[in-house]
């Protein structure tokens, strides 16, 4: 209705913006390509929701719905994840069999959320915080934590908690990094599963609107606040658990925690939120 008309009017302007992006150069400036995407992506939400403040997108759907926001604030009075943060802190400092601990792997006391995800140019892959946590364990002769929830999510929650306020500024500096970014981008916009739906279909085009009883959260800010304690789960879980749930909902076979697919998607989504601040963990319905 009103939205569709708006959209049509805006198309022209966006085509112009795209034209400005490409500039001939000897080496491709991948960061510039990505920055242009970010501008377009964030601009989409700015136009859809002119009244929503940019920093509020870190609060997910609560940026868009007042009644839900009030209830969320009630939960944040004493958020259920505080127990997980406490447990995560203990796990973070708990000595491994070799005497070291997770704390020995991370600088700054573990307040490093803002450094992840990043593209490891040597290994040619995206490294996420949860991946780094488990790699630290394996490097010290411990078993990796199982995915999606439990100790992995708790440690991640603790590290996110002590990193709150760190700015999201994920860089893309090489062809390999850009390739991972593009894979994440294709995942985000591509339709999949029995319902033939995409991330963007629900979380861009339907953001703020009802799908049955639910208000769809905006994709801008999606990755800022994980891990989350979801009331529906009754426990804390990782971003990749949420991806798993979404894929399952649309009838697609989900990928594993820290699969290349989900890491690339996290990389892309986090880049789209460049400029926001990490504010996890969070409570969600």
């Amino acid at each position, binding site marked *: 209705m009103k939205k569709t008309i708006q959209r049509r009017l805006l198309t022209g302007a966006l085509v112009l913006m795209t034209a400005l992006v490409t500039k001939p150069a000897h080496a491709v400036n991948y960061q510039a390509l990505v920055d242009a995407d970010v501008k377009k992506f964030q601009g989409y939400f700015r136009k859809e929701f002119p009244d929503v403040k940019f920093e509020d997108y870190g609060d*997910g*759907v609560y940026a868009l719905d007042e*009644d*839900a926001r*009030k*209830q*969320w604030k*009630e*939960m944040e*009075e004493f958020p*259920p994840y505080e127990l997980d943060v406490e447990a995560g802190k203990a796990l973070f400092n708990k000595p491994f069999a070799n005497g070291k601990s997770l704390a020995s792997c991370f600088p700054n006391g573990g307040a490093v959320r803002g450094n992840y995800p990043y593209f490891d140019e040597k290994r040619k892959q995206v490294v996420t915080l949860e991946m780094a946590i488990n790699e630290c364990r394996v490097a010290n002769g411990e078993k990796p934590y199982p995915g999606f929830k439990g100790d992995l999510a708790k440690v991640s929650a603790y590290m996110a908690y002590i990193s709150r306020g760190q700015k999201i500024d994920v860089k893309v500096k090489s062809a390999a990094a850009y390739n991972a970014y593009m894979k994440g981008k294709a995942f985000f916009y591509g339709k999949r599963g*029995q*319902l033939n739906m995409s991330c963007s279909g629900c979380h861009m085009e339907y953001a703020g609107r009802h*799908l*049955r*009883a*639910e*208000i*769809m*959260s905006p994709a801008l800010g999606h990755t800022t606040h994980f891990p*989350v304690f*979801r*009331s*529906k*789960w*009754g426990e804390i879980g990782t971003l990749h658990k*949420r991806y798993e*749930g979404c894929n*399952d*909902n*649309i*009838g697609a076979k989900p990928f594993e925690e820290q699969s290349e697919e989900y890491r690339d998607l996290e990389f892309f989504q986090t880049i789209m939120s460049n400029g926001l601040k990490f504010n996890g963990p969070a409570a*969600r*319905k």
Partner: protein
Amino acid sequence: MGISRRNFCKTIAGSAASVAVLAAMPGKLMANWSDKAFAADKLEDAIAAKYGSLPIEESTAIQIKAPEIAENGAFVPVTISTTIPGVTNMSIFTPANFSPMVASVDVMPRMKPEVSLRIRMAKTANLVVIAQAGGKLYRVTREVKVTIGGCGG
């Protein structure tokens, strides 16, 4: 096995169904825990078990702060308070739950007559709060909608 949006939300069924229920009470409980009131499956029985046959009067001096539409029935934030003088106890009930009595708070002399908690609601239903002052009971009722089939976040 048609292709249907119905599949979309099927995962909620299990979690939202965690209704508060006490089919058979455990044998040994704290002696002073109001087991009869908690075990009652009807609102009237629960109130009678807790307060006996005291007269009940509808009151506007009890406030219930709760969402219009609960985001998730497993965690509904509720605050109850009252301005009735000399109140000694406040209890909260959700008649639609298998076991309606949710909590009962003794308002101690130094405590303000206000308490917040998170409760379970199986479905859209009334919240009933009873306050006791002197030999009388005061009651207020409010509806809270609970959406089932949630798949958001």
